[in-house]
C-alpha cells in the first residue's frame, strides 16, 4: 500500500507519494475554485509521476486550507501537524520551522521526535505573506524570481512598513517616485525586510531554537532567506522543495497509519 499526502493551499495544491524507501514522486498544481478537483488533479499527476495506478492500494491524508474538503482522503490533519512530520522527515535536526505560504505564515517548534511543542499562526493580514510579495513584484513590474536576485545585490534597505500591506504599498510607490528614486534593489530588500520583521516577531512569541528551517513557497526566495539569516545571526536550512513539506508530512502520517494496519 502506498501513502499519499495532499496539501490544498490557497494558490497551489501539493501531493507526495511515499514508498517504503522514500519519496516516490511529488507535484505542485494550481489550486482552482473546487478543492476536490484540485486535489484529484494533484493526485492523478503524482500517481502518474510515480508510475502507480489508481488501482494500487492508496492510503491518503489531506491537509491545508482545503484539506477538510477532500472527500477521498481517509484522514484530515491540520497543517501544523503535517509540517512537523514533514520537516522531521527531511531535516531531522530542525527544531524551529517557519512556513511561509501564500496567505498565511506558521511557525512551529518541534522536539527530537518531530512532535510539536508550540506553534503560532499569522493569517489575519496580508503583511508578511507570499501574496504580499507577489503584489509587490507586480507593483515593481518584475517577477518574484527577479526580486530574489535583486535583493541579494542590495547594499542597504529602504524603509518599508512591516505593519500593514496597504501602507507598505504606498511607501514603495513613494520610493519609486522619489527624486532621485531609491534604487530598485534597495526597495526590494526593504520589502523583504518588512516581511522578515513580521516573521521574526512571530518566532519570538514561541521562542527560537536551532536548527531553524524555512519552508513554503516563499522559502524559494533566496534574497528573503538571506535577510532572515542576517536577522537571526545564523544559517537557515531550506529543503530542496520547500513547498511540499506539509504534503510530505501528510504522506508520513498516511504511512504511519498503514503501518498501524489502518485502512
Amino acid at each position, binding site marked *: 500500500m502506498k501513502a499519499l499526502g495532499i496539501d490544498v493551499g490557497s494558490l497551489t495544491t501539493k501531493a507526495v507519494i511515499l514508498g517504503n524507501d522514500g519519496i516516490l514522486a511529488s507535484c505542485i498544481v494550481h489550486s482552482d475554485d473546487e478543492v476536490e478537483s484540485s486535489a484529484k488533479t494533484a493526485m492523478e499527476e503524482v500517481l502518474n509521476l510515480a508510475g502507480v495506478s489508481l488501482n494500487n492500494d492508496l492510503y491518503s491524508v489531506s491537509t491545508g486550507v482545503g484539506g477538510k474538503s477532500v472527500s477521498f482522503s481517509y484522514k484530515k490533519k491540520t497543517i501544523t*501537524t503535517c509540517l512537523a512530520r514533514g520537516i522531521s522527515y527531511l531535516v531531522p535536526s530542525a527544531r524551529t520551522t517557519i512556513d511561509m505560504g501564500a496567505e498565511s505564515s506558521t511557525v512551529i517548534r518541534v522536539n527530537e521526535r518531530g512532535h510539536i511543542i508550540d506553534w503560532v499562526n499569522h493569517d489575519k493580514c496580508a503583511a508578511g505573506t507570499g501574496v504580499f510579495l507577489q503584489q509587490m513584484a507586480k507593483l515593481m513590474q518584475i517577477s518574484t524570481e527577479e526580486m530574489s536576485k535583486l535583493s541579494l545585490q542590495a547594499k542597504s534597505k529602504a524603509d518599508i512598513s512591516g505593519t500593514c500591506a496597504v501602507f507598505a504599498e504606498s511607501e514603495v510607490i513613494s520610493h519609486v517616485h522619489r527624486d532621485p528614486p531609491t534604487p530598485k534593489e534597495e526597495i526590494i530588500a526593504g520589502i523583504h525586510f518588512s516581511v522578515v520583521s513580521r516573521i521574526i516577531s512571530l518566532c519570538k512569541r514561541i521562542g527560537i531554537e536551532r536548527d531553524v528551517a524555512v519552508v513554503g513557497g516563499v522559502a524559494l526566495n533566496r534574497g528573503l532567506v538571506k535577510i532572515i539569516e542576517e536577522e537571526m545571526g545564523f544559517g537557515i536550512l531550506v529543503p530542496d522543495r520547500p513547498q511540499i513539506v506539509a504534503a510530505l508530512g501528510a504522506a508520513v502520517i498516511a504511512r504511519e497509519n498503514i503501518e498501524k494496519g489502518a485502512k
Partner: protein
Amino acid sequence: MTVSQGKENKLNSIIRASRIISRMNQASPEARKSNTLYYQMIADYYTRLLEASKEGKFIAAHTVFFPTEILYAMDIVPMHTETTTWMIALFTGHSADMLSAGVELGLASEICTPHRGLAGAFALGVLPRPSVMLWSNLVCDNTAKSGELLMEINHCPGFFIDHPFQRSEDEEKYLVGELRDMIHFLEEQSGRKMDWDRLADIVARMDRQIELFREINELRKAIPTPFNPQGFLQLLTIDYLFPGRPEATKYLETLRDELVERVKAGQGAVSPERFRLMSLFIPPMYLIGFLEKISQEYGAVSVTEPFFTYWGEGALDPAKPLESVVKKSYMLPEMRMYGPLDERALNGIVNCAEQYRVDGAVYYADVGCRHTCATIKLFKDVLDRIDVPVLTLDCDVVDPTITSEEDVRDKLEQFFELLEDRQ
C-alpha cells in the same frame, strides 16, 4: 450621558430563557438536577430584580467581585451589572447594539468589551435604572473607572470601595473601614439598617459554600472527571449572584452529590476522556454551546481553572462577619490575578496542573484585557517547566466579531492533534 427613557428593560429575556431551560431539564430524565436548580435560581434572581424595578424599590447595581453578602444582609436587591448585561446579550443576541452604544458614549473600541457594553446597556435602557452604583477596583483599573461612568449615566449616587492591592493586617483593617463606610452610605440612601445577625448567618453559609466548592474541586480530580467541560461557568455565577444564599448551598450540595455518584460509577463528563485541560480565563460566552459540543467531540474537558474555581486557604468566622467578608475577598480565586504575580502564585498554577493531571492548558486571551494578556508568556513559561503545552486563543469574551467559531475550531483541532501526538 443619560439612560434612554421610556424603554422597557430586557430582564424578561433572561427570566423567560432560564424558565424554559429549567422546564426542559425537568422533563429530561438525563438532565442534572443541579442544572435545573441553577436555572431556577437565575430566573428567581431576575424576577426579584424585575419586580423591584417595576415597584420602584431600592436597587443596588454593583460590579464584579463585590461583597454582595452585605446587600443581602441589608435586604437590598442587588444587580450584578456584568452578569446581567451579558446574559441579556446572550439571550437576545443584541451584544453589537450594546457595544456600539458604548462607543457612542465615547468609549474607544480598544476598551475592554465587558465595560464598553455595560455602559452601552445602561445608556440603551436595557438594564433597570439603579438607586445606587457600587463598585471597587477589583479586579482591574477598568472596573474602577467604569463605576464612575455608570454613576454618571444613571444620575445616581455611588460608592467606591478602595480594595488594597496587597494583603496584610493593616490593609484588612483598612478594607473593614471601607465596608463600614459603605454600609453607612447604604443605610442613608436606602433607609434600611444593617442586620448584623443576618450577615453572620450569611457568612456561616458562605463558609459552607467555600467548603463545597473545594469538595467539588476534589471530585473533579477523578479520572474520568465527572463535571461537564464548561460547567465551571455555573460555579462562577453561583458566587457572583448568590454568595451566602440558602439556594446556593442547596445547588452546591446537589451538584456535589451528583458528582460523587458519577465518580463512584466511573462516569466521565466526556466519553472517552482524552484530554484534561486547564482553562485560563473565561472562554467567549457566545461560543459556550459550541465549546461544549467540540469538547464532547474530542473528549476534552476543563478540569481546573486556577483563577476561577480554586479558592484560597482559610475559613470564615460568623462571629466576625465584616472581617470575614474582607477575608473572603482575599480568598477569591480571581485574587491570584490581583497584586504581583510572585513565585507563589505561579507555583499555584503548576500545583493545579499537577494535581489535576492536565494534558494541556487553554489560555483564552481576551484581546481587550491588557492586564491578563500580559501574563501569557509568564504562564506559558511556568507550565512549560512541567511540559504542559498552552494554546493561546485570541478572542473576546463577549464580542463575536473578534473570533469566529470556525477560527476557534481550527485552533482547538490543532491543539488536540498536538496533545494526541504527545500521548
